[in-house]
C-alpha cells in the first residue's frame, strides 16, 4: 500500500519542473516564475532597465542586458547574486549566445554597432558597424552566421562569425526588432514592428522566401506590431507576440498563414516555453503580467502579476524532486 502511494506520488510529480525568468524593465528586477505552481517564487534586483535575458547552456549563468547601466550582468541563478558585469558597449537591448556557449553577440542600440564579448575572458572581441539602432540579434545553430537587425535602417545585417565582418545586408519592413533562425538553420525570420510583418529568408542565399502578415478582427492595424517570437520544437508553428494588440499569433511555418490569435495581456513583448514545451509564457509590458498559454489547445490559461513592464523571458529547467 505504501509502495503504491509512493509510486503514485512519483507519477504525480511533474517530470519537467522548471522556472521562467522575467526581466522587469521599470522595476530593475527579475521575477522567477515556478512552472508548476504558476506563481512568482523569487525576485532579484538587477542593473537599470533589464531587457534581453538568456541562460548559459548549462543554466548555471544568467546573462541580463541592463540597458541603462550600459552593461551585461552575469547572475548566479541559484543565489540571485550578480557575479560580475561584462563590457557590452552602450545601451545593450538584445543579445544572442553563440553555440560555443562562450561568445555573446550584443546589439548596442545607441552606437550602431554589434559587440562581441568573450564571457570567459570578459573582453570585447570585436565591434562590428551595422545600421542605425541595432536591436534584434540571432546566431545560426551552426554558429557561422550572426544577424543584427537595425531599427532605423530597416535591415538585417549578416555577420560572418569567423571574420566578424558583414557579408550581406537585406532589407526588411519598417523597424525590425527580433530575429531567429529555425532549428535546422535553413531559414531566418525577422519581425518588423511598424511594418507589421515577419520576413522569412532562405539562409543559404539570403533571399526572401516568405512574408507573414497579421490581421486581428476588431483591432486597428496600427496596433498589430510583431516583436518577439518563438518556434515550437517540431518546427511547425511560430508564436508571435503582437505588441499593443495584446495578442499572440500562431503562424503555420509552412504556409506562413496565421492560424489563430491568442488574447494575452497588454503590450506583449517576448516569450519562453516551459521545459516540456507544453506552456508558453508571454511578457506583457503595460499590464505588468505574464500570460501562460497552453500550447496544445492554444488558449490562455492564466496571467501572473510580475514587476512593472516585464520584457524578456528565459527558461531554466530545475531538477525533478
Amino acid at each position, binding site marked *: 500500500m505504501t509502495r503504491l502511494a509512493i509510486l503514485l506520488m512519483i507519477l504525480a510529480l511533474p517530470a519537467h519542473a522548471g522556472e521562467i525568468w522575467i526581466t522587469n524593465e521599470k522595476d530593475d528586477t527579475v521575477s522567477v516564475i515556478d512552472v508548476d505552481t504558476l506563481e512568482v517564487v523569487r525576485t532579484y534586483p538587477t542593473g537599470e532597465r533589464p531587457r534581453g535575458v538568456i541562460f548559459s547552456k548549462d543554466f548555471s549563468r544568467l546573462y541580463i542586458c541592463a540597458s541603462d547601466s550600459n552593461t551585461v550582468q552575469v547572475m548566479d541563478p541559484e543565489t540571485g547574486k550578480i557575479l560580475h558585469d561584462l563590457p557590452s558597449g552602450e545601451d545593450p537591448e538584445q543579445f544572442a549566445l553563440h553555440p560555443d556557449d562562450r561568445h555573446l553577440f550584443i546589439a548596442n542600440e545607441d552606437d550602431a554597432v554589434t559587440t562581441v564579448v568573450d564571457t570567459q575572458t570578459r573582453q570585447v572581441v570585436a565591434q562590428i558597424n551595422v545600421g542605425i539602432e541595432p536591436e534584434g540579434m540571432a546566431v545560426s545553430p551552426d554558429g557561422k552566421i550572426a544577424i543584427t537587425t537595425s531599427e532605423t535602417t530597416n535591415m538585417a545585417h549578416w555577420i560572418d562569425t569567423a571574420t566578424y565582418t558583414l557579408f550581406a545586408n537585406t532589407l526588411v519592413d519598417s523597424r525590425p526588432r527580433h530575429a531567429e533562425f529555425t532549428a535546422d538553420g535553413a531559414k531566418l525570420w525577422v519581425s518588423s514592428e511598424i511594418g507589421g510583418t515577419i520576413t522569412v529568408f532562405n539562409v543559404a542565399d539570403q533571399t526572401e522566401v516568405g512574408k507573414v502578415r497579421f490581421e*486581428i*478582427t*476588431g*483591432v486597428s492595424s496600427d*496596433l498589430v506590431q510583431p516583436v518577439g517570437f518563438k518556434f515550437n520544437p517540431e518546427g511547425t508553428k511560430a508564436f508571435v507576440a503582437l505588441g499593443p*494588440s*495584446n495578442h499572440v499569433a500562431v503562424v503555420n511555418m509552412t504556409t506562413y498563414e496565421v492560424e489563430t490569435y491568442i*488574447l*494575452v*495581456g*497588454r503590450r506583449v513583448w517576448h516569450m519562453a516555453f516551459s521545459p516540456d514545451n507544453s506552456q508558453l509564457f508571454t511578457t506583457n509590458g503595460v*499590464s505588468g503580467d505574464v*500570460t*501562460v498559454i497552453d500550447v496544445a489547445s492554444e488558449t*490562455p*490559461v*492564466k*496571467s501572473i502579476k510580475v514587476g512593472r513592464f516585464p520584457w524578456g523571458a528565459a527558461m531554466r529547467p530545475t531538477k525533478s524532486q
Partner: protein
Amino acid sequence: MTWLVALSAILHREALRFVGQRSRFVAALVRPLVWLFVFAAGFRAALGLSITPPYQTYITYEIYIIPGLCGMILLFNGMQSSLSLVYDREMGSMRLLLTAPLPRWWLLFSKLLAGTLVSILQCAAFLAVAAVWGIRLPLVGYLVVIPALLLSGLMLGALGLMLSSFIRQLENFAGVMNFVIFPMFFLSSALYPLWRMAEASPRLRDLCTLNPFTHAVELIRFALYGQANLMAALWVTVALAVFSAAALRGYDPARGVQNRKG
C-alpha cells in the same frame, strides 16, 4: 407516495408543455443568442477585459456575458412559468391542482422544480450553441454549473411565483415583467462587471449588489469555472427562502389574495 405522484404529474405536464411548445423553446434560446451574437459583438473588447475573479486571464466580452445570459434564461423562464400559473388560474386548472390532497407548498415546489428543470435544459442548449461558436468553458464547469443553475432557477422561479400570487390577470403580469425583469437584468453584473458600474456611480453599484439576480449570475459565473462562490450562494439561498415564504403566503387561501374579491 402520492407526493411523488403529484411531483411526477406536474413534471410530466411541464415536460409536455416544453415538448409541445417548440416555439417557446426556440424563443427562449434565441433571446440570449441574439444578445451573444449581436449585443456582445458591439462590445467585443478585442483587446481584452481586465482580470476579475473567477477569470485568471484576459477575456473577451463574449466570454464575460455568458453567465449573465444563462441568468437571463433562468429569469425569463422563471417569470414565464409563473405567468402560466396566472393563466392556469384564469382557466380553472389551478383550482384542480390546488385541491390535490397534499400540502400546498409541495405542489408549488413541484411546479417550481419543473419550471427550473426546463430552464436548465435551455441553458444547456444555449451553452452548447456557444461552444459550437467557439466559446468553450472548462469541462468541469459544465457539471458544477448544474447545482448553481438549479439554485438560481428556483430562486427566480420563486420570485415569479410570489409575483403571480398577487396578480389576478395576465394583463397585469405584463406590466410586472417590465418593472421586474428589466431592472433586475440591467441592474446586475450580467452585462458589466460591478467595477464598471462603480465607475458610473457607486450608488448604482450598491443597487446591483443588493439585487439577488447579481448573486445568481456570479454564482453561475464561478460555477462555470468549477469554483464555489459561497457568498453568492448564501445570498441566493436567502432570497429563495424569502420569495418562497412570500409565495406560500400569497397562495394561502386563508391569507393570500386568492380569496379576496376581485
